[in-house]
């Protein structure tokens, strides 16, 4: 899902009268169907220098500052197109991301771009990608004897000390069995510890 683009597409439908003559909206409408290569008008084997050069042409054409005198709707559309360009530039100049993107393109059965399903920066939500809950571990505790351990675990987690936080969480879980929050936190910490240390 690509919310920004969805709203941009909707914006395209509510476009002003000039729509037919104004190619900006034609760009906007096909934006989701264009590959990054098509967006820049380059071959899929273009090297980094060629990508950069194409991006600069793209900037010169679409950067909002080049169009200060235009209508608000047109500027909004240009902004959506330009943002896609910065995303394309990022992916195409990063060997890892580009390789991943090319693979995605090659596995398309019908040969049509499927950019909508491809988000270069997201990986499947993992335990480590979870948002902090509104409550601290300490607040989730139901048994008074588990509280000091949960509180200490909160502090250690904030300080990034996973090893010691794990110990505290084991104790907290022991004193407050069946607490989903504490169990989840322990699993998260174990997963984190199993991962190669992040920099």
């Amino acid at each position, binding site marked *: 899902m690509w919310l*920004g683009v969805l709203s941009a597409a909707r914006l395209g439908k509510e476009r002003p009268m000039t729509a037919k003559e104004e190619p900006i909206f034609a760009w906007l409408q096909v934006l989701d169907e264009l590959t990054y290569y098509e967006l820049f008008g380059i071959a899929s084997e273009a090297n980094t220098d060629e990508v950069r050069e194409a991006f600069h042409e793209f900037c010169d054409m679409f950067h909002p*500052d080049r169009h200060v005198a235009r209508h608000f709707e047109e500027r909004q559309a240009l902004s959506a197109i330009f943002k896609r360009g910065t995303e394309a530039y990022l992916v195409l100049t990063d060997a890892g991301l580009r390789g991943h993107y090319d693979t995605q393109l090659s596995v398309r059965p019908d040969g049509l771009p499927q950019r909508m399903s491809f988000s270069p920066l997201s990986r499947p939500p993992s335990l480590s990608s979870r948002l902090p809950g509104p409550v601290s571990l300490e607040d989730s505790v139901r048994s008074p004897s588990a509280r000091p351990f949960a509180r200490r675990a909160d502090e250690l987690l904030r300080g990034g000390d996973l090893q010691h936080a794990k110990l505290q969480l084991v104790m907290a879980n022991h004193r407050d069995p069946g607490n989903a929050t504490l169990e989840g936190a322990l699993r998260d910490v174990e997963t984190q510890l199993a991962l190669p240390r992040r920099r």
Partner: protein
Amino acid sequence: MAVVGIDLGTTNTVVAHARAGNVRVLADGDGRRLLPSVVSFPPNGEVLVGQRAKERRIVDAKNTVASVKRLIGRSWDSDEIKRAKNRYAFELKEGPSHGPLIVVRGHEHTLSEISAFVLERARAIAEGRLGESVDRAVITVPAHFNELQRAATKVAGRVAGLDVLRIINEPTAAALAYGLGRTEHERVAVYDFGGGTFDCTLLQLSGSVFEVLATAGDSFLGGDDLDTAIAERIAEAFLRAHRTDPRADPQAFEQLLVGAERVKVELSAADHAQLSLQDVAFGLGGAHLDLTFAMTRSELDALAAPLIERTFAVCQEALSIAGLPGSAFDKVILVGGSTRIPLVRRRVEQFFGRPPLDRVNPDEVVAVGAAIQAAALTEARPRRDIPPAPIPGARNIQRMADAAEDFIEDEVTLSTDMTALLAEREKRSSVRPMPAADGAPILVDVTPRALVVETVGGWRDVVVQRNAKIPCERTRAFTTSTDGQTVVRVRVAQGEEATFDKNTFLGEVELSGIRPARRGEVTIQVRFEVDESGTLQVFATDLSTGREAYAMLQLVGIAGAESVAAMRARREAHQQQQGIRRAT
């Protein structure tokens, strides 16, 4: 209605204006082009800004605020604020949402309000020179400024009654002032040695894109340190001559500092400088004690050398971040008054292996670039036509430029030879040529630091990476972390550290009304949008319900629109009460 470029500096502020191909640095009624960034509050309720405020630093240090740029946008707990509490005579206290406040004569001021006094004065100077009202501005900040510092600077502009068109990086502005960024690929090093701070910024310019490769700085290293070293030398000479130490009396030492600065400036042009000081102190029986002090340039160089070497340690740091040698840079630009010292120039040339550019006055180069950008953003230019959209999946790929070729009727005139233009400028000292607005490069700016979200366990997840070209938009999916969770808080920070808390906390977005479910079942989409002026908006959407609920990020310690209006109202009421008239 005019638009200006303002270099809001730690020590001095400069305002410039560009129109129809000419850039002018605007001077006040006394012909001064540098406005000291100092605000003083004398007992009569007036607010003094600039030179008159600077003079009060000696007699009324407690109610005279200087160097506010070092503190703006910092939180109360930051190291800079802690250090400032010892270093400065004015009183600081904690305000709402961890923002520091300055207390003078019983009145509290936010740091943005203090900067607004300076900006207001700069605006008045510009209005006096231009003879028309000034309502919009491009303001510059150091490349290392984070989102909060930029936002606080923007608030200062708004409180001063200016519509801040854009906040741009000082080194980028300096590069613009030299008309760089037209050739294909160019690497530019900007060596910025000012009164109180030193910064080295490395830029990659290619066509229209200005990208910051690396930036490093020392916020307590500048020309003031050299003044102090010279003043110490004068004090020693005085002590030898009269057996009285002028350092014991702050006012006498301040007099030595003023003299020291004069010696320093003279030695940038001459090999010898002589200073006559009168009535520095009083000896036995009230005898007036005078001193004649002489210094040669080689003596000055010996004093300056250790300070100058420190700047190259910083440059080295920037180079290692960029992973490039000093010789990889095609242009070196000098910014800041301290770069007038001949030894600095020689060492810069040695370090980077090429003579630095110095055609534009180093005190004014940043403001000149800001004015060029301000004009480029406002002056009418040919409307750029967009070529027809490509057909998705079509195999016949045509270069965009080729497609556009037959399409553009009014070809944009590109720059003429900048060297010739700049040479001509030297004949007319205050008027500088600039590239025509339609030929000005497009600044594709970048985010100075990564933008991150806090995840379980105190880690962070990068949503927008450092140096991302803006405007941009990035989306990331997250899940809830507890059973039956109905509220999520998306905490946002800026920085490169792996642990969330080690980064600069920006603020948070709260999304409520989530369908209660088991942990991990609800997916929350977080979308970061950075617009062309670098303003960040964060949206959180509950994908499970398909509800497009979103919330906007409230930056910590940064005034919202309402408090800006309140600050402005307070300012205007105060001005009426005081009957302060704008200087012309």
